[in-house]
């Protein structure tokens, strides 16, 4: 019964997408406004269909309806409630259902937002493209990835989710956030394609998609950070990023997406970099599909094991059609696409953004090459291979440092061109702080060129951000009598985009510092202890107290109780699940602002009662999570509509002018 209803919902979604595309297409072709308005209603239809299908799936999971293959494979009677809920996206078919739910949700919000422009061909074409993507994913569920497929023999109990997916509540957040990020980029993509088709590739489509792009980017950022957190806190191998193909699959669209949200500012301000912007957003969408393909098709070796499925060829075909379609569209409009106007000076904000684009695109190319190289090589020789981490690090670190530099300098560069004096005045204090940091670190004997450079650039960036904020507050207080906090808040509200962006940059600095410190200065040891025995690692004294075993229907957990002097009791563990060989380790972590103490249980206590613990000291890891949080906070600020007062005209840019600070504040604020 449920199976039939669920499948019906999917069929309705598919039909709705087809009808929506047909109606809108007819409306555009016949120039009939009534059809354009009618076509939009199908967006509501597919959204409701997706909600129904998802709800039916959840109901089947909670009811333990093992006649449905997906339910039998992903929940067991002993599975706790939370993991029964998250089982909805534990495997392929369910995750496609989640994808469709997110996609139709975004589309519904977008369609409602543009209701006043229902008859605008740009909006209509964008809706058609988005419905086309929706149609593909619904069709996948009609055929090769049917979440409601039935079993001819109903088992008494299901197998439960993969142990890795029922070990930590994070499974309720990481995949949905990631999907909301991936899927969100479908909307800017649709508008970009619509812009190419209608020939309206000016600034209009950019303004239309700005908010959605930021929201999608924020979710993707959160999703990636949560993935790193999962790696670190849940999987217990001691690291947070392994340059694994599945991880890279999430990073690639993030890189091009970040380039895009910066590069659009140049097109808004000066109408330039049009080809870059269109290409970046089209590439971002293609990369999300490529990412899904790499993750789910099993073509590349990955430690993220997903079960076999046959949708690989379908995803590949879809990716091919989309990618070639994008290339064809750009090629068709090539003559008219190039922006009028040239970059005036290499030392200008436009130039900095162009370099930014090149760096991000280069980084994406580096990661993409490293990820798919095994496929190319294996097509020509019979041996299996992987690309080791040093490749990604050796190529990535210099690019990362360059990006950090431009992030610090970029916001200080004026548009168009500048005089050396203006530049010197703006960069002086931050540069000094950066240089002093560098000297202090070198004198203090800090290890690693990359680390020292990263910290110095971080100090440089923070100072330049601080300087911008201070100047802005001071300018406001000279114009009206406000206290500092009030001035700060009102200043931010006057230009949420700028200050939100600066907050995000602060977060990036924190993340960069955390990455540099945690890569360079990790200490790893193993200790074997008998009960009551102690060992000291890097100043931490650990005493093995004994073992505790927890049994539940869901799993059996063996915990090693360890007392860390001064910090309390910690319990790294290994859990075993029925129906699954081997154990899943859970680390026990003490988080501090300066460093983490990271304990893992390498081997359970054996007959002689000794236990082997992994002990790791990871510096500054917590700043990775804090930095991620700050990035999200900044994005939220940037999304708040700005309260604009009357513009103060720029009267002069002469450095002698006593109002040069005011001028800069105004220029920065407008």
């Amino acid at each position, binding site marked *: 019964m449920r199976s039939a209803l669920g499948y019906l919902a999917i069929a309705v979604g598919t039909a709705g997408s087809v009808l929506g595309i047909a109606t809108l297409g007819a409306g555009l072709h016949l120039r009939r406004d009534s059809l354009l308005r009618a076509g939009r209603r199908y967006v509501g239809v597919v959204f409701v269909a997706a909600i129904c299908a998802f709800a039916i799936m959840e109901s089947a999971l909670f009811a333990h309806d093992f006649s449905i293959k997906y339910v039998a494979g992903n929940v067991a009677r002993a599975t706790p409630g939370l993991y029964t809920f998250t089982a909805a996206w534990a495997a392929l078919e369910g995750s496609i259902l989640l994808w469709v739910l997110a996609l139709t949700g975004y589309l519904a919000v977008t369609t409602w937002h543009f209701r006043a422009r229902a008859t605008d061909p740009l909006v209509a074409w964008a809706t058609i493209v988005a419905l086309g993507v929706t149609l593909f994913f619904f069709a996948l569920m009609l055929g090769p990835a049917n979440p409601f497929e039935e079993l001819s023999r109903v088992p008494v109990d299901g197998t439960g989710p993969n142990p890795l997916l029922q070990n930590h509540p994070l499974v309720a957040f990481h995949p949905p956030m990631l999907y909301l990020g991936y899927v969100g980029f479908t909307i800017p993509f649709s508008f970009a394609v619509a812009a190419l088709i209608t020939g309206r590739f000016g600034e209009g489509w950019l303004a239309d998609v700005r908010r959605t792009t930021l929201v999608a980017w924020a979710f993707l950022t959160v999703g990636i950070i949560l993935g790193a957190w999962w790696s670190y806190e849940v999987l217990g191998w001691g690291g947070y990023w392994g340059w694994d193909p599945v991880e890279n699959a999430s990073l690639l669209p993030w890189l091009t997406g970040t380039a895009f949200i910066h590069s659009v500012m140049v097109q808004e301000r000066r109408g330039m970099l049009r080809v870059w912007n269109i290409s970046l957003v089209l590439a971002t969408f293609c990369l999300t599909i490529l990412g899904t393909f790499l993750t789910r098709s099993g073509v590349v*070796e990955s*430690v993220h*094991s997903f079960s076999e499925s046959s949708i690989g060829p379908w995803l590949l075909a879809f990716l091919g059609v989309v990618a070639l379609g994008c290339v064809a569209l750009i090629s068709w409009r090539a003559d008219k696409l190039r922006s009028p106007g040239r970059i005036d000076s290499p030392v200008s904000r436009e130039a900095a953004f162009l370099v930014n684009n090149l760096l991000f695109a*280069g980084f994406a190319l*580096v990661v993409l*090459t*490293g990820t798919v*190289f095994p496929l190319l*090589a294996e097509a020509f020789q019979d*041996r*299996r*291979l*992987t*690309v*080791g*981490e*040093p*490749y990604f690090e*050796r*190529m990535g670190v210099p690019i990362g440092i360059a990006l950090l530099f431009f992030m610090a300098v970029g916001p200080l560069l004026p548009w168009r061109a500048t005089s050396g004096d203006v530049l010197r005045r703006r960069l002086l204090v931050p540069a000094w702080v950066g240089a002093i940091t560098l000297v202090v670190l070198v004198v203090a004997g800090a290890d690693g060129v990359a680390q020292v450079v990263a910290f110095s650039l971080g100090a440089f960036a923070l100072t330049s951000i601080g300087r911008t904020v201070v100047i802005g507050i001071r300018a406001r207080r000279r114009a009206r009598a406000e206290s500092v906090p009030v001035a700060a808040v009102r200043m931010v509200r006057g230009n949420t985009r700028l200050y939100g962006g600066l907050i995000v940059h602060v977060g990036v600095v924190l993340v960069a510092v955390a990455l540099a410190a945690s890569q360079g200065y990790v200490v790893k040891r*193993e200790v*074997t202890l008998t009960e009551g025995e102690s060992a000291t690692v890097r100043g931490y004294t650990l005493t093995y107290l004994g073992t505790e075993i927890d049994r539940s229907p869901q799993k059996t957990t063996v915990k090693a109780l360890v007392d860390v002097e001064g910090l309390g009791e910690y319990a790294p563990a*290994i859990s075993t*699940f*029925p*129906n699954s*060989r*081997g*154990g899943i*380790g859970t680390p026990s972590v003490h988080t501090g602002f300066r460093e983490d103490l990271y304990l893992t249980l*390498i*081997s*359970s206590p054996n007959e002689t009662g000794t236990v*082997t613990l*992994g002990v790791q000291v990871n510096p500054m890891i917590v700043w990775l999570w804090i930095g991620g949080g700050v990035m999200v906070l900044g994005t939220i600020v940037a999304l708040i509509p700005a309260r604009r007062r009357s513009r103060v005209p720029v009267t002069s840019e002469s450095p002698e002018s006593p109002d040069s600070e005011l001028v800069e504040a105004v220029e920065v604020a407008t």
Partner: protein
Amino acid sequence: MRVRWAVVAVGCLAVAGMGFVVLKNNVVYLDPVSEAVADKADGRTRIGGAVVPGTIDGREGAVAFEMTEGGVVMDVVHEGSPPDLFEACAPVVVEGRWAGNTFESDRLLIRHGNEYEPPDGESYDDCPDAGDGSG
């Protein structure tokens, strides 16, 4: 203008070339035991096979064992303690370098794969019980 684009193009090619060199230097092959032993390559490599029962010899901070595939057996010394799943007959991938006829590994993964085959004529009474899977 022309010159500037030429410089940019050459620069890009140089960076790309450097990138490929770094890539090539960091490729890690995965071979089954039979092929790895036949051609003991320099540099970092990965070898897949299964643990021969009765050969596991744990020492302080390291474990020595024999690994087999395709009828060939090899010696492995792994630095560090192996994970809980490590046992006789476990399918493993070790990563490291050759030191003479012994393979010194610093990374050990238990994997699922089909490249394992026991040497002819050997029986595996020491393989652990498959166990009761119906939990």
